[in-house]
């Protein structure tokens, strides 16, 4: 595996993480979190952890995001920070 590719994805992961925490809209946050999870999943796939990546793809990027969206839908998108 290429450590350069690894590094690029790591940077993306950090960027999406910061975005998910910083953005001032909960729905956007939730979607960015989904993106973060997906990046994470790629990263793990690169590292050879296929099972973990598979699980993260279905659980983290899939179901978690759905849960977040459902919760945001049932509460509010508004956030002050």
């Amino acid at each position, binding site marked *: 595996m290429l450590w350069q590719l690894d590094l690029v994805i790591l940077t993306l992961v950090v960027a999406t993480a910061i975005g998910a925490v910083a953005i001032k809209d909960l729905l956007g946050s939730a979607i960015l979190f989904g993106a973060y999870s997906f990046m994470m999943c790629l990263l793990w796939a690169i590292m050879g952890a*296929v*099972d973990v*990546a*598979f*699980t993260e793809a*279905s*659980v983290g990027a*899939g*179901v978690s995001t*759905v*849960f977040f*969206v*459902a*919760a945001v*839908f*049932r509460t509010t998108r508004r956030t002050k920070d």
Partner: protein
Amino acid sequence: MKFLGIIVVVITGALLVYTTGDFPSWSDPASPASTHVSPHYIEKGMHETAAPNIVTAVLADYRGFDTLFETTVVFCAGVVCFFLLRIPGRSPFTECQYRHKATGITVRVKHDRKMSGSFGEFERIDTLWTPHDLIIQTACRILIPFIQLFALYVIAHGHHSPGGGFQGGVILGASIILLAISHDLRTALDRLGEKAHAILCSVGVLVYAGTGAVCMVLGFNFLDYGALARILHVDPVMARSHGILVVEVGVGLAVMAALIWIYSNVSSRGNYDEGL
């Protein structure tokens, strides 16, 4: 609070970075993590459990007890969401709304009387109702069987390829959640009712724990699938392989049911109305 947060984060982070100096190099084959316990799994796992996917072998057999409780954690989450959110029954004095599918006319029925007669032409809706997109509905309806088929494959083929009970269960659950999103929650619940997935959830874990208990009854330790050899009439190694399969099915059931359970409670605030 923000200031405090920054201080805590900076201090903790600095300490953690400081300790990385003594870490073994990343992806070093000679690091202790790769040389002490895990070689046994890689070298002997296939012989001892007949599962080429070492992760599955370790997950469901060597460390099967962890996995049992991991499944229980999911089960717990389902029960907790139900426990917290579910509003049992609905008061008889709320009104229900039914929409005539063809014309879009909405009928309000008080006292929760069921619509009699041609119910099929009406659908129950809530005040928040938004029209669903026909394309999405159709696409999902076509996709869902394939998703479920794939999920079953993932569960069944966990021995040989990435995947297993968890992933399969999640995908199965996701397929139903997809149905609930693309149509509405009621449609999904018509397929798999609340009582059904609640019981299925505990049955899934029961299958797992029960397999272990059967081993115990047969005089072996808990979860020692080798005991199943006596029932299945195969040699102990194959018995382990079969045991893993049974367990994976249980995990799949439990995870699927739990995810649906959580979703239906979260998306409807426990009302079990039309959901998102």
